[in-house]
C-alpha cells in the first residue's frame, strides 16, 4: 500500500494493480462546502490526466483528473447522498473512485506525501 499525489491535488492509494483516488485535504479546503459529486461508472476507461469525476461547491465546479490510466471498478456511491464526506474525510471515506491500473509505470511521475507537502508550501 502506498499513496501518491498529483500537482492537481488528487491522491491515489495503490494496492497491487488496484488503486483508490480522491482529492486532498488542501483541495477540499479550497473548494469549500461540497454540494455534489459526479463519480465515474464502473468499466469506464480513463487515461492519465483525463476528466474522471466532477466535484461541485455552491459556486464552483472542478474536474477531477485520473492520476493514472486504467479501468474504473467502482465509484463511491456514498457521495451521492452525502457529498459532505469530501469535506469531513477527504483522504478516507470521501474517496471518489477505484480503478485497475493499466500502466503502473505512470506512478513514477507522481509525488509522495513529503514532496506534496513541499509543493503546497510553494503555493
Amino acid at each position, binding site marked *: 500500500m502506498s499513496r501518491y499525489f498529483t500537482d*492537481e*491535488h*488528487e491522491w491515489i492509494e495503490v494496492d497491487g494493480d488496484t488503486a483508490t483516488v480522491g*482529492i486532498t485535504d488542501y*483541495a477540499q479546503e*479550497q*473548494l*469549500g*462546502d461540497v*454540494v*455534489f459529486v459526479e463519480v465515474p461508472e464502473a468499466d469506464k476507461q480513463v487515461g492519465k490526466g483525463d*476528466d474522471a469525476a466532477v*466535484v*461541485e*461547491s*455552491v*459556486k*464552483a*465546479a*472542478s*474536474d*477531477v*483528473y485520473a492520476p493514472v490510466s486504467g479501468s474504473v471498478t467502482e465509484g463511491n456511491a456514498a457521495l451521492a447522498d452525502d*457529498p*459532505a464526506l469530501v469535506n469531513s474525510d477527504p483522504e478516507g471515506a470521501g474517496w471518489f473512485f477505484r480503478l485497475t491500473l493499466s500502466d503502473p509505470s505512470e506512478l513514477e511521475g507522481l509525488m509522495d506525501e513529503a514532496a506534496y507537502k513541499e509543493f503546497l508550501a510553494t503555493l
Partner: protein
Amino acid sequence: MGMNNVGRVTVPQETASDKASATATGNRALMLKEPLIFESGAYDRTGVDIPDAAEVKSRLCGLERDTVIGLPGLAEGETVRHYTRLSRQNYAIDLGLFPLGSCTMKHNPRLNEKVARFPGFADIHPLQPIHSVQGALRVIYQLGEWLKKLTNMPAVSMSPKAGAHGELCGVLAIRSALEARGDAREVILVPTSAHGTNPATAAFAGYKVEDIPATDEGRVDLEALKARLGPDVAGVMITNPNTCGLFERDLKAISDAVHDAGGFVYCDGANFNAIVGRVRPGDLGVDAMHINLHKTFSTPHGGGGPGSGPVVFSEALAPFAPLPFVEEGDDGLLHIIEEETAQEHHGQSFGRMVAFHGQMGMFTRALTYMLSHGADGLRQVAEDAVLNANYVLRAMEDILDAPFADSGPCMHEALFSDSDFAEGFSTLDLAKGLIDEGFHPMTVYFPLVVHGAMLVEPTETESKAALDQFILAFRSVAERALAGDERLKSAPHHAPLKRLDETQAARKPVLVWTDPDPRAEAAE
C-alpha cells in the same frame, strides 16, 4: 483537479437575532412577511370573473383533466397585495445605484413602457398579413438602421432573444461562412476574461474552446493570440471594452491577424454602452457583434429578462444571417423574409433561431430610447458612463487594490481585487456589507483573471451626488474588510433576510412547493 473557483460561500453563522424586538406577526413595520400563494390561496378562489361556458358537445373525447391540478387562486386585492409585498423585498434601479459590472443597470425611461403598450404594438399577432402590420415592421427596420449606423456594419439580424442568443447567432454565421468555403474548422479562441456565455456558446455551436491569456495590464495577449492562430481556428470572441473595463486597443491588429489566418472576429457587445456614438466596432474589423438592448438601450432587466440581442454583421457574414428579417420591397411595402420568401432573396441564410420575429416589445422600447437621445445624446451617454466609472476608480484606488489602474483610463467599469483584505475576509463579505449601506453590490468574483474580483459599473444615469454617496459607503465597507471587522462576516444585518444558506439549497434541492401531508397535520 481543475479548479474554477469563483468565491467561497460562507455557511451562515449562528447570529443571535435581537429577540427583544420580535413582533407577534413577524412583521417589522413596513417590512411585511409574505406567505407563498400555496399557503394563502385556495383552489376555489379567483381574482377573475369568467362567464359560464355555453353548453356544447365536447370535442375533448376522453382527454378531460379530471384530477386536481393544484393551482391556488387569490382575489384581486389579495393578489395585488401579495406581489406588492414581495416587490418591497427587492432592490432595484428605481431605488438606487445598481453598480453591477457588465450589466449596465441604467435608468429605464417610462416613455419606453408607455409606447410598448400602445395597442398598435402590444395587440398584434406575429402572423397577421404583412400589410396589416407595416408600422411594426417599420419599427424593426428603423431600429436595425440605427444599429447599423451606430456600429458601421452593413447588415443586422434582429431575432436573437438575448445576449447569449446573439452570440450563438454570430458564431453560427461564422460556422456557415466557413462551411460555405469548404473549410471546416474546429476551434474558437476566447480570452480568459470573457463572460461565461462566450465559451458556452462556442461549445453549444459544436466548437472546441481554447483560452487566450491576458497580459499583466488586463488586455488580450496579442502575441499569444497570433501564435495560436492557424488553419484550425474558426475565430475569436473578443469583448470590447473588455470585462476588466479596458478598451482592447489592439482590436484592429487582432482582427487583421485573425482575418489573415482565415478566421472571423466575434465581438461581445455587452459593454457597448461605453463607446456608443464615439467608436464604431465596424471600423475595427469586427465581423459580428451582438448588442444587448437591455443594457445599452435601456430596456428593463425585469429581474432577469426578457432581453434582446440583435446582431450586426460584416459583408463577409451578412449572406448567412438567420431568418427572418425585414426588407423593403419594390412595392413600397416592408416584407418579412422568412421560409416562404427566403429562397429567392436569402438562399445562404443558416436558418431560423426562434419562432416568429424576435423581441418586438424590446424593439419599440429601444427605438423610443434612441430617438429620445439621438446621435448627440447617445454620444454623451458613453462619455458620462466612462467619466462616472473613472470617478469611482480614482476615488477608491488609494485603499483598494485596483489591478489595472495603471493600464490607462477605465471605460464603463472599474475593477478591484480583495488582495489587501484582512485574513479570512472575502469579497463576499464586502458585498454583503454594501447591502447594509443601502446599495446593491457590484459584480463579484468576475472576471476570473482577478482574485476576488469586484467590478463596478455606475452607468451614465447616476448623478455626482449619488456617486459620492456610493463611494462613501464603498470606502467605509472596504476599510472594514481591510481591518478585519468581524461583524462584516455576518452581514447583511439590515436586509429583509440574513445571509442565506446556499450550501443546504444545493445539497438537498427544494425547487417546488410540496403540500404538507394532511394526515401528519391532523396527528399534531
